[in-house]
């Protein structure tokens, strides 16, 4: 019980003081230079299956524990993770679809995006190196 409380407290604190430093990244060979929030949302919510260049999209989420996932959805659609999970519950349990593949951390996101032409993910700006292309900066208003 104490553990739950500590975890909740930590989560609350990280939420309260977090500033978004996330960027959305794609493979340099994807043919995509830029995307807006709406397009990125459509891909992560499973409504659009292709990148604007026509390549099949492979969205990559991060594990909830990294905190980046909650930040990403709050920033991009102003939804909490419970709401995003509710949305996916509707699709999973009616056999309509499944949520994006999930990486353990930003290093794994970088690894997948740099090796897959259609992959799209989000990482802290500091983690985004030359292997990927930044197509949307979520810290910019």
């Amino acid at each position: 019980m104490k553990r739950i409380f500590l975890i909740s407290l930590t989560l609350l604190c990280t939420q309260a003081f977090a500033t978004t430093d996330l960027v959305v990244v794609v493979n340099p060979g994807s043919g995509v230079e830029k995307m807006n929030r709406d397009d990125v949302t459509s891909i992560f919510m499973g409504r659009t299956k292709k990148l604007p260049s026509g390549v099949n999209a492979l969205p990559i989420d991060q594990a909830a524990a990294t905190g980046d996932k909650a930040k990403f959805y709050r920033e991009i659609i102003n939804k909490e993770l419970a709401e995003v999970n509710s949305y996916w519950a509707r699709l999973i349990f009616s056999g309509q679809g499944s949520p994006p593949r999930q990486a353990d951390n930003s290093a794994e996101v970088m690894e997948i995006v740099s090796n897959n032409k259609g992959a799209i993910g989000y990482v802290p700006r500091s983690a985004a190196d030359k292997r990927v292309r930044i197509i949307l900066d979520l810290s910019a208003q």
Partner: protein
Amino acid sequence: MLKRSPIACLTLFACLAFSSSLRAEGGDASPSLEKAWTFSGFGTLGAVHNQGSGSSFIRDITEPKGATNKGLSWQIDSRVGFQVNLKVSEQLEAVAQVVSRYQWDNNFQPELTWAFLKYTPNEMVDTHIGRIGFDAFIGADTRDVGFSYLWVRPPVDYFGTLAFPYMDGADISFHYPIGSGTARVKLYTGISRQKIPTLLNQTEWTEVSGLNAGVIEDMSGSRITGGFVDYQDNHWVARLGKADVRLSREFPMSLNIDVLGQIRDAANAAADPLVASSLNALASDFSLVGKNISFTSIGLAYENGPLQTQMALNHWTSQSLLFPESHSGFISAGYRFGKFTPYAVVSAVRSVKSNRADEVAARMNVPISDPIPSITNFMLTTGQNIQHTYSLGVRYDLMANVALKFQMDMIRTRNCSPLNLPVVGTDRSCAPPLLWPTVPVSWDGKANIYSAVLDFTF
């Protein structure tokens, strides 16, 4: 035992949901595209108290007994479901789902709700073949997944009479990108396997009336056909749908009340041929075999960050007098503050009343209290719903996969009160309202429902 054990099971699964959420520190429980097998599930542990004078409240017409003013009812909203997905290839997926919920036969016998193959040849088309959900309204095929919506349960005035959770058949969907969203056309057809308890199965009520209990309306074998067009983007969902159910079986008559038989006997006994033909027409208008029930519905939902709104309207028609034409609708809005989302819902259903009993009485030249007009009136009211509900509630997102909800519903029913039952009295007899398995013989039509549920996915 049957009633206790599902609750114990649900408590266990609620604990499982909590622990899986804690485990999510190192990895999330959500299924990934890359795994061949995915096991997932959902559940609700819910308690309902009905502050009403002897009425019993149900969530939908498949439930045989409802929540009363005596303590808490755990069976109304509690349920648990398991799903397994097997991804055979990028194009082919197999899905099976089993749900245990309170059912027509008064137990929680698990039921196979989905068992289908999903084939997606390209991003424009997908098809499901096997046991598939009846996607009649927005959210109709995830009614059991409480975690997926804001409310304690889908509005009863709107969803309560939708008796078909699934069918054995196939569907096909075509997706077209339009602007920043996607339009979809979906067509489906299948055979229902559903049974529902009829009012004659309501023991409390039939004890009062002296009618025989234990009658189940068997909808299995009915053909469901329908389709819809919808549009979805990051904020809007709009849908226009139509569905037809072609009934394959007759309304079940209990051992000591054969309504159609009584009307036909009266027709045979009538000296006036006009009376005889009018009574034969009446019997055939009541019959169900080969008759269609149709739903035409529109649904609209808008979400923007913490705001969630939804509305829907349905027009229901049928070729049988037993299922009167009706209109239903609801409007719902909720706004999230941190982890709390308070919400409000207004819903209503209105059946069209028939004056056929008066016509029969006039044709026969007998008072309305005569057995035949009286029983006609009784049958005309069996499918009637005239009520509205105001609901207020709050959803608290306890964890990313666990939500706690409280809801209060103020229900006002204006069906004719079954003051005089056909075997008890003979004046303006009518049946208990369709959505109320038990009501006192002289009911004021008022009930306040208090509910608390814990919804989870795992």
